[in-house]
């Protein structure tokens, strides 16, 4: 099998213009004859559904939450990048493109990243027009701040709630289309399978989470914007409901899963405090603008932080990376935190933590300024830890945050199944092996507002759609298989809860497929995952029925898919004999502990295909070409 990424020929600056010109259009009167399904209502899904509704398509948008406004994009704190160069500090589309390709450790597709950088400026305009209350200067212009992996200030923000405000903008645009009757919003409903007929994605099977009823929806194309899979680790900064099910069922129906082992571990989260812990809380990367990260120089130093004199502190990021300092990319910051903790210099009860200290910034700028910039984050920290970060340094530790891997898509954001498009975190396309801060919001909105409205139109204009209804044999097969899985889960009546399995799976993934990976470790993980999965299908217990609101059943279906994904992640991580970005293989590092890529052998996207239960997945490689940003060892020193 070969993969055609459909990258337009010619200079990269003109690629998107050329692609748009080459696309076929659907005439306005014909648009309402086409029906589209959007799964997910986060930044990518809501912006896609709203924009497609505005164009006149008949759109159905599904989310598992009670309202589209709950999608986890809402929790993004720090900001959104755009190459506006308002601060006059040397930014440009090319520089954002360059930083993103380099930040992704040369494992992203250049053409996609360039388009993302181009579109970034339109996103800000769009959001301002919607009334997103971005931070402003006194003169009324938009304010910017800095983020990791960049030496310019290009991050737009709305206090520490940028994701919330951008999502509410997209949600409001979506509700406007609901009012206009172009979009039907279907909340509390979960996609459980994809319907593929004659090689085209033609619909989905869903379960109403209140009544348990299974339904079939048929459309001319299906757009997945169902987010990332960080919850395979159980503890992550993802929302509790975030799951891989929609993507995974599409994978099992013929879509390819690309670079599943590329996961992002965010350096600044509140450390784990106990076994009961249900999730990890992120402290925005923007805090690294003014906070300084340090640990004691001495091992096992138990003194409270304020009693450790300045010359006995190790500001290890500033020491090792003088030019980027505390603003190194996330993968680098996380790995360094792990390293100092492994050396026995970690802080807090568990010794799995480092200090993020604002005392210098408060002395320099005053408490008022710090409160204005980060007040809500400081409050959140205090609420959870009962410590006052204005007085004592925060304790932070890395946690699973984002997944760069996802379903393989071409330049048009179409998966290997014609008619199945994948947007936002659910696809693999723009971040390579590491995502820079404030780039997720940019990608979600770029895909939804500005890419999919063109590419889906081209697909509709160039394909024919046979009449399909619920009586179609293939539709009935898919529904029957969904029902069978539900019945099977409910009939096990074992002894262990779904969460106990999920927690154990997460532990395996964190230990062997987390911040540092080794070939033998990944082998061990694959064995343990298989054993645990076998026990799951024999010993899980799910009270209640399938024809009712049943949160245990919902979780069980998601965890069943996480088991299968976990194995694929370990296979991918084992197969990639190099270190790059968030994928750190201990066997492949430079003498000073930095990631060592192997461009000669691994400069490709690993796209995995499903070959049936019990069979190993099939690897197809999409070679990556770098014609503009030439691969070099990333240096932030």
């Amino acid at each position, binding site marked *: 099998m070969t993969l055609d990424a459909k990258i337009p020929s010619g200079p990269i600056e003109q690629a998107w213009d050329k692609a748009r010109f080459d696309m076929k259009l659907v005439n306005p009167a014909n648009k309402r004859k086409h029906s589209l399904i959007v799964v997910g209502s986060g930044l990518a899904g809501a912006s896609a559904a709203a924009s497609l509704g505005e164009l006149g398509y008949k759109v159905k948008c599904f989310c598992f939450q009670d309202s589209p406004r709950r999608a986890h994009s809402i929790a993004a704190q720090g900001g959104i990048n755009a190459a506006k160069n308002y601060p006059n500090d040397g930014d440009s589309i090319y520089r954002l493109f360059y930083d993103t390709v380099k930040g992704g450790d040369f494992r992203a597709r250049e053409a996609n990243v360039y388009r993302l950088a181009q579109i970034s400026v339109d996103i800000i305009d769009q959001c301002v027009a919607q009334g997103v209350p971005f931070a402003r*200067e*006194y003169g009324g212009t938009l304010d910017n701040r800095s983020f990791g992996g960049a030496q310019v200030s290009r991050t737009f923000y709305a206090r520490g709630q940028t994701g919330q405000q951008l999502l509410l903008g997209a949600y409001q645009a979506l509700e406007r289309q609901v009012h206009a009757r172009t979009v039907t919003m279907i909340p509390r409903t979960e996609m459980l399978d994809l319907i593929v007929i004659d090689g085209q994605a033609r619909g989905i099977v869903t379960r109403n989470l209140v009544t348990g009823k299974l339904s079939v929806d048929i459309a001319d194309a299906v757009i997945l914007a169902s987010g990332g899979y960080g919850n395979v680790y159980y503890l992550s900064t993802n929302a509790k409901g975030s799951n891989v099910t929609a993507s995974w069922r599409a994978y099992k129906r013929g879509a390819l899963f690309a670079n599943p082992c590329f996961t992002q571990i965010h350096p600044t989260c509140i450390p784990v405090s106990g076994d009961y812990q249900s999730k990890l809380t992120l402290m925005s990367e923007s805090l690294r603008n003014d906070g300084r990260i340090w640990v004691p120089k001495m091992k096992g130093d138990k003194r409270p932080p304020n009693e450790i004199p300045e010359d006995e502190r190790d500001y290890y990021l500033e020491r090792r990376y003088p030019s980027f300092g505390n603003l190194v990319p996330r993968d680098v910051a996380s790995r360094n935190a792990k390293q100092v903790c492994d050396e026995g210099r970690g802080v807090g009860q568990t010794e799995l933590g480092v200090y993020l200290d604002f005392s210098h910034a408060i002395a320099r700028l005053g408490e008022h300024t710090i409160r204005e910039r980060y007040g809500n984050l400081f409050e959140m920290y205090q609420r959870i830890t009962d410590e006052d970060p204005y007085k004592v340094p925060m304790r932070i530790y890395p946690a699973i945050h984002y997944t760069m891997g996802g379903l393989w898509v071409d330049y048009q954001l179409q998966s290997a199944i014609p008619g199945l498009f994948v947007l936002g975190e659910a696809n693999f396309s723009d971040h390579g092996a590491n995502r820079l801060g404030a780039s997720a919001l940019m990608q979600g909105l770029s895909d939804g507002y500005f890419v999919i*409205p063109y590419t889906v139109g081209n697909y509709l204009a160039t394909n024919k759609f046979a009449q399909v209804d619920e009586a179609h044999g293939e539709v009935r097969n898919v529904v029957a298989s969904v029902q069978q899985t539900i019945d099977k889960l409910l009939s096990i009546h074992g*002894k262990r*809860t779904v969460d106990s399995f999920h927690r154990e799976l997460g532990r395996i993934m964190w230990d062997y497929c987390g911040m540092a990976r080794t070939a033998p470790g990944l082998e061990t993980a694959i064995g343990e995952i298989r054993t645990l999965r076998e026990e799951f299908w024999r010993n899980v217990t799910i*009270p209640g029925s399938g024809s*009712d609101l049943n949160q245990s059943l919902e979780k069980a279906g998601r965890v069943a898919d996480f088991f299968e994904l976990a194995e694929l992640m370990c296979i991918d991580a084992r197969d990639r004999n190099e270190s790059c970005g968030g994928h750190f293989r201990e066997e492949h590092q430079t003498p000073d502990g930095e990631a060592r890529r192997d461009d000669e052998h691994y400069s490709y996207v690993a796209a995995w295909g499903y070959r049936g239960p019990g069979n190993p997945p099939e690897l197809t490689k999409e070679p990556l070409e770098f014609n503009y940003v030439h691969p070099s060892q990333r240096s932030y020193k």
Partner: protein
Amino acid sequence: MKLTLEIWRQKNRKEKGAFVSYPMENVNPEMSMLECLDVLNETLIERGQEPVAFDHDCREGICGSCGFLINGVAHGPQRATTVCQLTMRHFEEGQKLVIEPWRAAAFPAIKDLIVDRRSFDHIIEAGGYISTSTGHAPDGNAILVGKEDADQAMDAAACIGCGACVAACPNASAALFTGAKIAHLGILPQGQPERDRRALHMVAQMNAEIFGSCTNIGECTGACPKEIPLEVIAAMNRDYLGGSWRKHDNVETTTIASAEDWGTD
């Protein structure tokens, strides 16, 4: 620590609910209220009983999914905190916590602590937006917004749509929720062209959803986890009055939430 949870259990909208008492041993004071319910649910499931159903998602206090009354107080005793971020250290050894869902006609019961808040979406649908389609926008800096205005708009826009304001209000009014959106968009220059229509349509929809009227009690802002100021209700009333005076177009409302169902009937 030891606690007793008295939790409202209700199988579905049609069946009657009742409080059930669950003694809890070994509650870690560092865990959140929702993690305490997780612990309870694990033991219920192990005993083959149905766990307590409750809405939750981000557990960072921003998605607005979670929320219930604890001893009659929406989101419990701590100021500006949702139940997902409320740690158990705020309770005393041996305390009894009565936990029940939001009670409002516009929020029909679904199961246990879960209620149907689609009425909030309907209010936004009626006009809680700026009518601009993708691609129409001028350059971001072409629209100047003074810092004070941007900050004030942000204060109102911080609403998470959890429903605590309605639950706290003796009249079950949604004035704080509706006012927050009207104020957010009404303060900004982008929001001016539709300012009258927005207030008229959103208020009409709010009334159609059978939320109660606001009588300026102020419980809503006290319970609000984002501390949305009471002034947004004044902003709503002012815009509504202005809109009524200038008599813009006829106001239609969309379907009433409680008339819809999830397909059980």
